[in-house]
């Protein structure tokens, strides 16, 4: 059967951008196919910006943004969103923190009001702070301390790969640091980072652009203007010698390993970065991918496998420095060294012999499906476009991604594979302390 390249379709979501006088950047992307909207506010501050001695503070502060604001009592935000038929959340990333709602479109003005109100100022009280420190500690217990593989590898690999505090520290935070946090710290963090000039608002879905623009002016126009702080340089040099650490996880029944290699700057060298995004999928997406075929099916040295860009799996919303990661769980008694050696061998083979016929095209077609599927959710569009605006000034890139991924060539993928050498690799091994 001749290999025929599936033609890669694109979305045509319209994009409107403007900036309010107070520096707030706005992205609107209307789509009237369903009576729902997504509203996202993204602040240009994340885990990398938290001060030493205050690990976990960016995330703790995210919780405090839900505890009441200028005109809203504690609990009011939740009740107003859900009482309008919507859902909400927030999340803290390495380079940004997002706050978002998805609602029936008759709640547009209410959602804008809620976001504007906390942009003017959250209610930072001792009682709310202590309550949310307790809640965050339970979050860390659920996600890290009380389960096997907690924090693997997103919290356990960065300290192997990086040397500076912003890149290496635990973004969930130590209990000591969380308990030491004060209301004054929070007020200071808000003043510095939660400035109108440091934020992007995106609204997607069932909106009329003129009407939405007027509502945004009405609610955000008088948020006091504060400029964005200077973003520090978080750059670190690439590794020149392999780094390898291990630790015992007392709950883990199977060994596991994750390895990471630095990749080109995702923002300033997007063309150089994209081949790595494709490479991760060539290596690990599905039963027909190279590493699954070799490690899971042929050698049986690995029981599950994943490959992706960014410590939080965020290929298009992270800045430099970042990495391509591979992670694997091994069968009982599995040999991590052997797995790493085989990965090196497969990368070599890919760099030397290239791809098989149709291998790249089918991987790209599958990636297009994933990208399109993510944008089908109205909130996914608002969040993605807000971050693309914040980090690149280019929210419309969302429409272009399937095509750009499809234009990556075999030569580029081979060249990318050739850079993933053992001496540039940082890896972390989980020793199965809970093996029976």
């Amino acid at each position, binding site marked *: 059967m001749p290999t025929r390249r599936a033609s890669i379709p694109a979305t045509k979501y319209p994009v409107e951008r403007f900036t309010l006088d107070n520096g707030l950047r706005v992205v609107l992307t209307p789509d009237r196919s369903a009576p729902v909207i997504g509203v996202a506010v993204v602040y240009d501050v994340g885990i990398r910006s938290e001060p030493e001695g205050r690990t976990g503070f960016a995330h703790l502060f995210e919780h405090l943004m839900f505890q009441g604001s200028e005109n809203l009592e504690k609990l009011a935000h939740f009740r107003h969103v859900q009482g309008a038929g919507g859902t909400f959340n927030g999340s803290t990333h390495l380079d940004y923190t997002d706050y978002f709602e998805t609602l029936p479109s008759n709640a547009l003005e209410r959602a804008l009001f809620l976001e504007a109100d906390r942009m003017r100022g959250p209610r930072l009280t001792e009682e709310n702070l202590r309550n949310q420190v307790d809640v965050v500690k*339970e979050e860390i217990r659920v996600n890290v301390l009380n389960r096997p593989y907690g924090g693997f590898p997103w919290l356990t690999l960065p300290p192997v790969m990086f040397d500076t505090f912003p890149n290496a520290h635990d973004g969930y935070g130590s209990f000591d640091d969380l308990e030491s946090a004060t209301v004054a710290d929070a007020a200071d963090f808000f003043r510095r980072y939660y400035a109108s000039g440091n934020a992007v608002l995106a609204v997607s879905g069932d909106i009329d652009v003129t009407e939405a623009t007027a509502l945004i002016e009405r609610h955000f126009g008088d948020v006091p203007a504060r400029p964005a702080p200077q973003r520090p340089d978080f750059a670190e040099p690439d590794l020149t010698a392999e780094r390898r650490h291990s630790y015992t996880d007392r709950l883990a029944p199977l060994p596991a390993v994750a390895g990471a290699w630095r990749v080109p700057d995702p923002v300033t060298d997007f063309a150089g970065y994209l081949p790595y995004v494709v490479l991760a999928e060539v290596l690990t997406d599905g039963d027909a991918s190279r590493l699954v075929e070799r490690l899971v099916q042929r050698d049986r040295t690995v029981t599950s496998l994943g490959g992706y860009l960014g410590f939080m799996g965020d290929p298009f919303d992270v800045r430099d420095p970042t990495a391509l990661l591979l992670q694997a769980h091994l069968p009982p008694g599995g040999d991590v060294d052997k797995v790493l050696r085989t990965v090196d061998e497969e990368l070599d083979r890919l760099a030397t012999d290239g791809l098989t016929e149709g291998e790249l095209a089918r991987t790209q077609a599958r990636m297009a499906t994933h990208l399109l599927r993510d944008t089908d959710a109205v909130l996914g569009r608002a969040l993605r476009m807000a971050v693309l605006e914040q980090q690149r000034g280019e929210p419309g890139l969302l429409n272009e991604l399937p095509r750009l991924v499809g234009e990556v060539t075999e030569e580029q993928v081979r060249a990318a594979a050739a850079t993933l050498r053992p001496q540039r690799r940082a890896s972390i091994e989980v020793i199965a302390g809970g093996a029976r």
Partner: protein
Amino acid sequence: MTATAETATRPLPPLGPNRRLKLPKQAERTLDNGLTVIAVRRPAVPLVELRLWMPFGRAHLARGAMLAQTMLAGTAELTANQIAAELQKVGGGLSAGVDPDRLMLSGAGLVTGLDRMLEILADVLTGATYPGDWVETERDRLVDRIQVAQSQPAHLARTALLKRIYGRHPYAVQTPEPDQVRAVRPPVLRKLHSERVHPAGAVLVLVGDVQPERALDAAERALAGWGGDGHSADLPPAPPLEPGPLLLVDRPGSVQSSLRLALPAVPRTHPDHAALQLANLVFGGYFSSRWVENIREDKGYTYGPHSLVEHSVAGSVLVAGAEVATEVTAPALLETMYELGRLAALPPKPEELEQARQYALGTLQLGMSTQAGLASLTSAYAGNGLRLDFLAEHAARLAKATVDDVAEVAARYLAPARAVTVVLGDAERVAEPLAALTAVRTESA
């Protein structure tokens, strides 16, 4: 109004008029072989979602799990890698999963690849070969996965709860033992496939950028040749809950306790269902509920408490769960019983009901607004004998439920006296405080 008052308080903007629930364009056909196909149009992105629901009640647990694990491992035409690669070519993918009700094949791909995806689906349904080397590999992988699951508190708590609720019913055990998995060989998989993977009673759902009638034609072309008259098996009705002492499952050294409460519930079509859904929301079914506001936002005992009515073919149950710090296990249970009791004994406030109602109606709209959401909803409904038009009926019931209706169902279904309670945690530290509140029976994990 004075100028000061104006700057001090900004009023909350009112909501615009509610948008009417609008059902998407759809078509349905039952093929000669008994397969029902439902196609739904949502053209937002150029993709198609696929869900094939096959009744699978009473299937052997380990064999069923292994069948799902190896169904896509090869046919007479294609090897496992070729199946995966051929699907990838059209941006597609398929995966198989089982639960005590059904076997499900699901996936998504570029809409231009629909015919090819259906062709491969048909090949798998009519000719999966269960090759020996793959079965061997996947057997080991499944055992590994079960071991990882068994090290997770959420899984252990769920396992203990199901056993406690369902006793001898097939729902009681949903994860096979490693030894049972190790005993599975290709011939029994081929036999199970020929007995249970057949079109009668199965429902295929296609949702996306399709013309519904044409999607039905495509499905008919590809799947008309799928036959087989294997047997089906009816599940007995789930037994009623039998309250008793709190079951404490010991997990030494646990830094949190997993608290689970099961309460009676009714199927989607029952006249009490809408009011029960609203009562559950007021209690603990969303963030702005009494339980979450109490044990998270007031007391800080937990991160994500949740309460949900779970629907299965043989019965429905309401399950409330929270992971709480070990030292506040008993206080968290006390607050939980208090909130259940308060709702069972006293009517909710009208504004609490309105807020829950808006949430229930709004999230119906949100759930329908993506291809994937619409596909999963259509498939879950169809597996339980319902169609999308039930949404409109359900929305009307939600809109009509009164404070009295909700108070009445809360008294009947949410009464703490009717709860089955399981706690997984460090017995040495939590048994005594829990025993101060209720009778406790302790087991090891």
